[in-house]
């Protein structure tokens, strides 16, 4: 089942002579439950693509359909609700709120939406991510790997349609980085979570089912594991 479709998305910054096309006609379709890695050098447009998929930024042209809704046509309020309910975002620098406990950080998407917490599911997530004993700590009391695991928990708590990860291992050592990739794979396999991961690390990308390569704002290759 198709969960994401991009129709010829373009993103242009500036005008006239200083015109820069960060994305130049991206066409893409992602099925539910796929684990996709997007590779590309810095400046290739991969972060712009991720921001557009996450509803943080809007394309200059083209359609981005997530579960059949065009997010490029949303207003700001709608986009905020979309991000909260449909997208889980994981960043390189975790982006946890430093003054809130890990528990509150994880539950933030639900609290913003005034929803009740499903305690059983919450338990399952924090147990699986190995942060059950860190819930009352503040983010700066945790190691980088633990903070990133908390960020994964936050992104999963709403059971989003799409999980977008922007260089999630970029700030971690090899061992912690491997753990994070393992956990993403586990959530992909066990929760059937659709994941789009952006990386410039080939080793990380090889863990995905499908690898897209971006160069100068265009998709130059799309390869699936075993094909």
């Amino acid at each position: 089942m198709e969960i994401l479709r991009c129709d010829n998305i373009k993103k242009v910054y500036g005008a006239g002579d200083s015109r820069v096309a960060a994305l130049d006609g991206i066409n893409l379709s992602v099925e539910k439950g796929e684990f996709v890695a997007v590779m590309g050098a810095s400046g290739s447009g991969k972060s712009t693509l991720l921001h557009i998929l996450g509803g943080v930024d809007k394309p200059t042209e083209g359609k981005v359909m997530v579960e059949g809704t065009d997010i490029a046509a949303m207003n700001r309020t709608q986009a905020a609700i979309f991000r909260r309910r449909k997208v889980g975002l994981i960043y390189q620098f975790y982006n946890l709120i430093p003054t809130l406990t890990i528990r509150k950080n994880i539950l933030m998407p639900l609290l913003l939406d005034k929803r009740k917490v499903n305690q059983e599911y919450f338990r399952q997530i924090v147990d699986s991510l190995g942060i059950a004993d860190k819930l009352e700590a503040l983010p700066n009391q945790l190691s980088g790997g633990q903070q990133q695991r908390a960020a994964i928990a936050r992104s999963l708590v709403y059971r989003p349609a799409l999980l977008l990860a922007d260089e999630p291992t970029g700030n971690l050592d090899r061992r912690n980085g491997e753990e994070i990739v393992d956990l993403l794979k586990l959530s992909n396999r066990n929760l059937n979570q659709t994941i789009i991961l952006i990386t410039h690390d080939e080793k990380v990308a090889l863990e995905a089912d499908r690898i897209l390569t971006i160069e100068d704002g265009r998709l130059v290759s799309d390869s699936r594991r075993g094909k």
Partner: protein
Amino acid sequence: MTNKKCRFMTAFAVFLSLAGILGLTALYMREYRRGAFLYLSAFCETMAEESPEMEEAVLACVKKYCDYSSPRSGTRKRTAPVFLEQYGYSGEEFSGMLSGDFIAASTIMTIMSVLGLAWAVWYPYRYRRARAVQLTDYLEEINSGGEGTVLPAQEDGFSHLQDEMHKTVTQLYRTREQAVEEKMNYADNLANIAHQLKTPITAALLSLQLMKEEESETEKAEYADRVARQLERLHSLEEALLVISKVDAGVLRLERKEVDVYTVLSLAADNLEELFRQQGVSVRIPDLGCVTFQGDMEWTMEAVMNLMKNCIEHSGEGGAVYCDYSVNPLYTQIRIWDEGTGFAAEDIPHLFERFYRGKGVNEKGVGLGLPLARSVFELQNGTLTAHNLPQGGACFEIKIYRHSFHV
């Protein structure tokens, strides 16, 4: 809430607001009377001050008025015309409003408030009804096999319901796709099983036929051996199939007890001792202290044996199979590898597919050992992957998680 209860609650609310209105009216009546009393008092005071000789008469009049209008006097009906009206004054002049206008204005206000109340009750009701109908139509379309029209995102009391419905429907589609896929796999598996049965049976039949025609005893014994080998192969196939069927049916019950990794690896190696010796392959299991996980000893050992057998096949005479294990807060990891040529690149994605047989695999294998091993680890919250080592050689990597997400 049931319909009856809902109606009762609405009636109760209407009753409550009516009671409120009546109560308020009574309060204002009381306030009005107090005002009238103050006016009368002020009037009498002025009169008494203007002509003190009239004080007595005024007080007598007040007393008479009180007796006349007191609720205790029983009747408050005024039959005579209003006194001041005889001199040409009218109540309308004092209120600044004609009585006809007053009636019209109060009618309009009453209608306005009734309509307002009705609108306040009816409009949300109509909206909720429309949303309920929309969501029902959506589900109906899905149930009747439509391709799931997507509802526009709307922010209201129903949006969480809509969100959860959408997730459920997505899950449903996914399950349907999986079911179709599994059906295809089932057909493939059946074909594979038939094929796997056919080869030894044909070989055994051929050997039997040749044996009948053969005169010499030694040759006959040779054919009997061949038949026996084919039967053994059938036997092991049947055992593997039984286990696979149990895994598929979800009836393979695994224990969850503390399992020591070193013990499991050693037991598996002991069970394969003869094979190791035959092939001239050695096994190295380091003692890295107490590393444990929650799982089933027997089945883990079976799975590890399958992995070791695979490594033995890949190692030549004089080779070795290595093991290594570690633990972290998330999982216990076990690695088993050899120093052979490694997997063929095109085999790696299919290694754990049932009945898949890669290049250069010996004749005896049926392609069930590795899928079975993977199933055993998956049933224990684990994963099993395979890759080639940079220095050559095939490596199996097992990760058994302490906790794992479930749907």
